[in-house]
């Protein structure tokens, strides 16, 4: 069982594994892989804590109800799955600053957190605008041959490549 404790697998083994996993999510649960809607549901649940039931009358939360559903449990399970994998291989570490960030911008934690927060806001906003993320459009939707998903996935990378060049070759 050495493969369970390896730090990294071939990307093709991982990709084929995710492809096979998606056969079973369809067969057993009638669902594609996807993640980002769960963050919108969670945002609604948090808003409900502060503003009460009336949050549910918002048009967006009428369509995307602030409840725990199949995909929400999927995302929760992902945290555990990654934890198990990283503990088995000894790759688990508490880390504030990723190495490549530190090499370009140093080890200032508040600065990294501020940029991560800004990135997260754009990511969450953009995922809801596009109706999916790198999982829901990029994997779950493209394999269904959905035109909306292929366009979205290509635009994720166009936007990402432009911003990464700006961050590391202009700002750094």
């Amino acid at each position: 069982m050495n493969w369970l404790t390896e730090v990294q697998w071939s990307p093709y083994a991982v990709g084929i594994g995710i492809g096979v996993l998606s056969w079973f999510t369809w067969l057993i649960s009638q669902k594609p892989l996807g993640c980002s809607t769960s963050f919108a549901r969670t945002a609604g649940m948090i808003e409900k804590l502060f503003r009460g039931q009336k949050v549910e009358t918002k048009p967006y939360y009428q369509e995307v109800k602030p409840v725990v559903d199949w995909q929400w449990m999927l995302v929760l399970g992902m945290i555990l799955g990654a934890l198990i994998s990283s503990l088995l291989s000894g790759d688990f570490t508490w880390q504030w600053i990723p190495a490549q960030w530190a090499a370009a911008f140093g080890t200032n934690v508040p600065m990294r957190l501020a940029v991560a927060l800004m990135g997260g806001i754009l990511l969450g906003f953009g995922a809801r605008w596009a109706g999916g993320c790198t999982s829901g459009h990029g994997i779950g939707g493209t394999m269904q041959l959905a035109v909306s998903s292929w366009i979205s996935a290509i635009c994720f990378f166009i936007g990402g490549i432009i911003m990464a060049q700006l961050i590391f070759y202009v700002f750094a």
Partner: protein
Amino acid sequence: MTGKPTLAWGFLFGVVFGFLLQKGGVTRYDVIIGQLLLQNFAVLKIMLSAVVTGMIGIHLMKSLGWISLNPKSGSWGKNVIGGLIFGLGFALLGYCPGTIAGAIGNGYLDAAVGGLAGILLGSGLFAAAYPRLKDGILQKGYFGNLTLPGLFKVNEWVVIPPLSVIIVAVLYLIERAGL
């Protein structure tokens, strides 16, 4: 052959998905940024091999009548603009909504503190902006739940073999370029 989307199955599939993403290295900021800087193509290798494998399997099950698919509807205003906004955030954060769950399990605190709060905030902001967007920009160039076979007006099995060959060829070229 089809069942209900029960929560327990969702959780179990999530454990497998998170495990695989961690083993693929894509729970790491450095790997995502390496892809967006076009230095390390692990993200694309994983995505494309998942798409080929998944595409063949789920369409086979569809043709056998075991499942029915549910492609998302879209529009130019929705998918291009939303996709580009997402991409900008993707590079700033260095995680996506799926890999951030894995990154949290991996112990990465910039994901758990800054990134997670940001995604929740961004999702909430979109919910607030939604009434002003939904009948305007999100409908611009609406094409519904169109698929590639629908676009070309052919059977899906006319699209799947050549698309699989193209994806495998792209992966071969990436390997040959040493990326």
